[in-house]
């Protein structure tokens, strides 16, 4: 399986479009969004500067991009092309394919987070304690597993033609409604009510709690955990169904 992870990774790192969208794009968005506000400006009710607030949003967004975008499309296309079937004729256990996909995405999402943090610290003068940087990296990285599972589920649900629009709708829907692009506190009341139940909202809230030196809210942890069980369970079920059909 290590050989497959290595090759998946080599392929991901070679794909410039994918690297741009998962590594440079979130950092660019962060720099653009945070440029409009002064450095001392705070986001209402958080005590965090705009740059600090946006840093977590965009790091979450970047990790989401890395684990969701590549995998859903690849899995759907490789199911259709028959590569998944060909792999099942090797000694690799069936799940190995899915694990390799998730592992390679996790390796790409890490630089995405680190590049963004470096830009935030160097250009936008975001100041945090050493433990906060480490904890943020760890939480955002680990939390991205929820969306990696979602990516696998979409890959096994959608056909090769439909996978891109479906992924895009879910990706932008989760990003924007979850408040990764702009604080959900700026949303109308109805949207705010929806936003607080979204996994992306809970995901960014965990990071923000670290920035505020607070314990993460139990509700957010629970919401993320439930979504993880849902997505991973769905992915496992769809995977098994696909295996029986193929």
């Amino acid at each position: 399986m290590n050989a497959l992870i290595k090759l998946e990774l080599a392929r991901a790192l070679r794909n410039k479009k994918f690297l741009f969208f998962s590594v440079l794009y979130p950092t660019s968005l962060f720099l653009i969004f945070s440029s409009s506000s002064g450095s001392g400006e705070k986001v209402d009710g958080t005590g965090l500067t705009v740059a600090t607030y946006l840093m977590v949003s965009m790091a979450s967004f970047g990790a989401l991009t890395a684990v969701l975008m590549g995998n859903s499309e690849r899995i759907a296309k490789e199911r259709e092309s028959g590569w998944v079937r060909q792999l099942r004729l090797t000694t690799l256990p069936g799940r190995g394919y899915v694990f390799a996909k998730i592992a390679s995405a996790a390796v790409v999402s890490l630089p995405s987070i680190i590049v963004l943090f470096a830009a935030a610290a160097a250009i936008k003068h975001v100041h945090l304690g050493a433990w906060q940087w480490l904890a943020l990296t760890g939480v955002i990285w680990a939390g991205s597993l929820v969306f990696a599972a979602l990516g696998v589920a979409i890959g096994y649900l959608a056909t090769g033609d439909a996978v891109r629009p479906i992924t895009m709708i879910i990706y932008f829907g989760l990003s924007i409604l979850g408040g990764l692009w702009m604080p959900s506190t700026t949303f109308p009341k109805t949207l705010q009510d929806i936003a607080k139940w979204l996994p992306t909202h809970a995901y960014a809230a965990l990071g923000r709690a670290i920035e505020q030196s607070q314990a993460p809210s139990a509700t957010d942890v629970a919401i993320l955990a439930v979504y993880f069980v849902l997505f991973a369970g769905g992915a496992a079920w769809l995977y098994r169904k696909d295996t029986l059909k193929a």
Partner: protein
Amino acid sequence: MVTMTTTAAPAATTPVVGFDQVTKTYGSVRAVDGISLRLHPGETVALLGPNGAGKSTTLDLLLGLKHPDGGTVSLFGGTPREAIADGRVGAMLQSGGLMDEVTVAELVKLACSLHPRPYKPAEVMARAAIEQIADRKVNKLSGGQAQRVRFALATAGDSDLIILDEPTTGMDVSARQAFWATMREQADQGRTVLFATHYLEEADAIADRVLVLHRGRLLADGTAAEIKAKAGARRVAFDLEGDIDGAALRALPFLTSIDISGQTVRIQSSDADATVHALYGLGVYPRNLEVAGLGLEQAFVAITEAEEAKQS
């Protein structure tokens, strides 16, 4: 005492592939309809049939990619998955895609590292004659090149059974013949080789056993020569003058089919010598007499036509 001394070791009698009354249905279509067969170590077997005969479904069942609705499938006495996990099977499928955006060499290396008894990637590529395209991206290959890469993946390690699903699809005539030599090499190393094909020439050239599949059923099982004989091995054609006594001609011995158009008579016979001898016995004077062997192609058409005639 007697039974003990005559009992052979079980390993020697375990077939490589065992199908026992296997059926697979899609909706109302019986893709595989009660197939029983055994493949033995070292055999080179062609699975021959037109498109839609059930070849791909048969291979899928054999490899455990599909599960039979009825009957049992075994590989080396165990389940297909066990045999594959042990690296005893190398397979290329028509429907088997390749990982794209990686090079041929990278993909072969992956296949080697997934095999418990791998060969060196360079060796595997040399055998499949893909060294020249080693650095090419997999998604930039021609149909024939992709087939060679699939073959390389199927032969990345020391497997006992090699399954090839229409391996020469997309190759031109000379590439195909070169590829046959590669397939024979696999067989010469003592492996069991099973390949599906609708190129009848291919079955004739390589296989020492041919299974003819039609509408999910096994129509014939034998050597290429036996299958030709079963269908009517030779074609006899001649012209007759005057009125033709069709009934007398149809009664000729060993005749399997006859076609009379105008003054020309075409006969297929399983023993052309006897048929022609009897023809002279009718007191006629056949002109422009030709006796020619049937290719497996015609033999195959004859078998399937006979089967269809029986059913309708």
